[in-house]
């Protein structure tokens, strides 16, 4: 039996009177390139936070490759790499120091070869010794991606990874992410650039008000409205308005 990369069962989360997640059920298979779409406030980031252990659901369970993110959190977090949405960084350290520290947090020492490979693939080699403060927004975004990959997680969550990244860097980033996916990594992507989701993701879930309102392969979603040829953005707008 294949264990799904991510299994989300009946997850609900309230913030005061706001129902951020309202009984979400979702399974993402191993090796999928999966898109999680929705307008602002739909619950995407809350769902990712719950998956990453940054938020505790009021009810329901979440597993990463069979490991519960609450009761077996250490195993679950080792299997997960998360690129956060906010452009955050520690201003005290260089790019290489940042990646070595992040490796250490995951219990890994002597990770230099893999760090060099990540730096090369993300076109960061020339900036390895630069302090994080001195990097442009796009460079910082790529360091965030690198930090999520230092422990070679089989499941990678990218929360708006290309926000504020120029076209050239964006294309390089997608080449690298696609290669990781071809190597067997499961990719979960949230983005507001729907053309990116359309071109990259094999399956997509659309969220609205804390619920999943559409879940299908990208190809099926594009043919959801019979007799019309729509792109993903048009499908998204119709689903959200329905």
């Amino acid at each position, binding site marked *: 039996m294949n264990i799904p990369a991510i299994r989300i069962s009946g997850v609900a*989360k309230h*913030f005061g009177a706001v129902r951020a997640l309202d009984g979400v059920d979702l399974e993402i298979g191993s090796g999928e390139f999966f898109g999680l779409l929705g307008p602002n406030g739909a619950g995407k980031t*809350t769902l990712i*936070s719950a998956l*990453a*252990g*940054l*938020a*505790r659901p009021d009810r329901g369970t979440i597993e990463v490759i069979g490991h519960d993110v609450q009761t077996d*959190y*250490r*195993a679950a*977090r*080792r299997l*997960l790499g*998360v690129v*956060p949405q*906010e452009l*955050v*960084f*520690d*201003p*005290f*350290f260089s790019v290489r*120091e940042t990646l070595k*520290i*992040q*490796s*250490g*947090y*995951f*219990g*890994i*020492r002597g990770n230099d070869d893999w760090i060099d490979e990540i730096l090369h693939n993300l076109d960061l080699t020339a900036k390895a010794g630069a302090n994080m403060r001195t990097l442009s927004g796009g460079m910082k975004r790529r360091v965030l991606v690198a*930090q999520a990959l230092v*422990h070679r997680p089989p499941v990678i969550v990218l929360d708006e990874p290309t926000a504020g990244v120029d076209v050239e860097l964006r294309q390089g980033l997608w080449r690298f992410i696609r290669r990781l996916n071809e190597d067997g990594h499961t990719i979960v992507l949230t983005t507001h650039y729907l053309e990116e989701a359309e071109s990259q993701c094999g399956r997509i879930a659309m969220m609205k008000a804390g619920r999943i309102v559409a879940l299908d392969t990208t190809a099926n979603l594009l043919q959801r409205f019979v007799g019309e040829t729509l792109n993903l953005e048009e499908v998204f707008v119709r689903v959200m308005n329905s």
Partner: protein
Amino acid sequence: MIAFWTLFAKEVLRFWKVGFQTVAAPVLTAMLYLLIFSHVLDAHVRVHDVPYTAFLVPGLVMMSILQNAFANSSSSLIQSKVTGSIVFVLLPPISYRAFWAAYVLAAAVRGLVVGLGVLCVTYWFAALRFEAPLWIIVFALLGGGLLGTLGVIAGIWADKFDQLAAFQNFLIMPLTFLSGVFYSIHSLPPFWQQVSHFNPVFYMIDGFRYGFFGVSDISPWTSLAVVVVCFVAMAAFTLALLKRGYKLRM
């Protein structure tokens, strides 16, 4: 253990990279206290038959240890929370015990580095003795650990820098200044002597000073018992907060 050592090393590196601000500045401040107070009082005051300047040095060293241990863990946490970089520590599989131990140990290291710096620069101004060095080490470690733990609580609790400043200015500063750094509590009126006994910092300073001169306001064993109980209680409280993910995990 690798995660713990990495977080500890990162916290030490963090303050070391800005050592001018985190080590040199508090050493200079302590030296200024010594120069001013000793110039004014040394010729007139002896405490426990010890010249005032010599009496003052251990108090200043301990005060520096305590204030800097608190500053290290609290400022690191609030800064990480405000900038959002705390996520890098929350995403990996670091246990809440390792989290606490790394922050507190790094805070104690900064306190001890500053304390040692203060001792080195003030040593030349006073005839110090080292009657019971073990007491000096024990109280320095416990004091650094206790205030480092208090710094973790403040750093977790505070959402903004001004809340942390309030914690520091309205709790930590009065506790350290009114603890016998600059005086023996026997020089206080009876009421304030009694009040001083409710200040845990008083026991840290008094026990620490015993290690230098072999004399103190109260028995060092009593001070040790109070400080150990406070440390254990604060550590247990902090671990409970971290286990719950209080203000760290939604």
